[in-house]
């Protein structure tokens, strides 16, 4: 849930990168971190295992600029993708303003993608949110790999609602900022809608 601070003239929002294990959530954040001006970003924190798998979350604070005198700040989080970290995923979804689902385009990960979307739906519902109402964007990652499934097929499986979606290769950065921008925009539009 966004936090509007009239004193500091700031608006803070929380975005969460969701998706199956090894789909590239952390890689998205790393790319954003590397390519953002130092004054617009804070430190990136990764709570990871010794083998660099996300254990709890990654965190990256970003400033996007000002709207009508209010600084807009986005806090980017990733969830741990591995199935058995479900309790942690639920915690990280608390207070979320927008979700980016990172799908792994590889054919052998089709089922893992679908399970992860279902898991997202369930965990959101537990907190009274729904995927239909929350700002939601899908990223088809690893488009560069030879075993990537056609986007049309991924779309029919993962995006029946027709939310904004992007092809990406997070390692080289293709589609990373497009996905982030689209989500941030949806979040701000949602806040505008919610304004009295």
């Amino acid at each position, binding site marked *: *849930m*966004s*936090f*509007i*601070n*009239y*004193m*500091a003239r700031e*608006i*803070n929002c*929380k975005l969460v990168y969701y998706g199956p294990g090894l789909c590239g959530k952390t890689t998205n954040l790393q790319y954003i971190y590397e390519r953002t001006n130092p004054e617009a970003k*804070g*430190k990136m*924190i990764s*709570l990871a295992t010794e083998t660099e798998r996300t254990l*709890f*979350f990654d*965190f990256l*604070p970003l400033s*996007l*600029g*000002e*709207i*009508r*005198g*209010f600084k*807009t700040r986005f*806090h980017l989080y990733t969830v741990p993708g591995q199935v058995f970290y479900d*309790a*942690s995923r*639920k*915690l*990280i979804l*608390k*207070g979320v303003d927008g979700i980016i689902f990172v799908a792994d385009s590889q054919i052998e990960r089709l089922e893992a993608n679908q399970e992860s979307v279902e898991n997202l739906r369930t965990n959101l519902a537990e*907190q*009274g*949110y729904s995927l239909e109402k929350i700002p939601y964007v899908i990223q088809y990652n690893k488009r560069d790999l030879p075993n990537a499934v056609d986007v049309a097929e991924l779309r029919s499986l993962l995006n029946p609602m027709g939310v904004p979606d992007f092809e990406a290769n997070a390692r080289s950065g293709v589609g990373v900022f497009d996905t982030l*921008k689209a989500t*941030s*925009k949806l979040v*701000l*539009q949602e*806040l*505008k809608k*919610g*304004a*009295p």
Partner: protein
Amino acid sequence: MVNPQMVMYEEEFTQIQTVVDRLVREANARVVFIVDKNGQLISASGEVDNIDTTSLASLTAGNIAATGGIAKLLRENEFATQFHEGENANIHIQLVGNRVILVVIFDSKSSLGLVRLRVRKASDELTRIFEALLNKVREPGGDSPFAEITDEDIDNLFND
């Protein structure tokens, strides 16, 4: 949405900052800060220049969330207090009104007993301030900086 949106106004911010500033002095603390449960920093006081408060805020909230998860598994309501002792710095974390987190960082110039005592008093005051703030936010007709922004304003933010 499940919870009302967190909004901070000047009046309540000043009250909160007064409590936090006083707590730094009375507890002989190095730093005191308040974070909302989602990891947004609300207020800080003390030697904040040497500390990455944004990261601390996010990690503290993650810590409280994880501990809250453990409490739920044990059918406890919440573990409201945490204390971590280091070689040079200690950190006392207190959940206030089940909504915000009060963090006190202190060294050998203070003691756990003193910090606990002062935190208890500050918690009561903060609970009252945040309750009043939440009631204010729930009132209909409050203004929002978003009421006047246009789609164009949003687009402009993303122009490279």
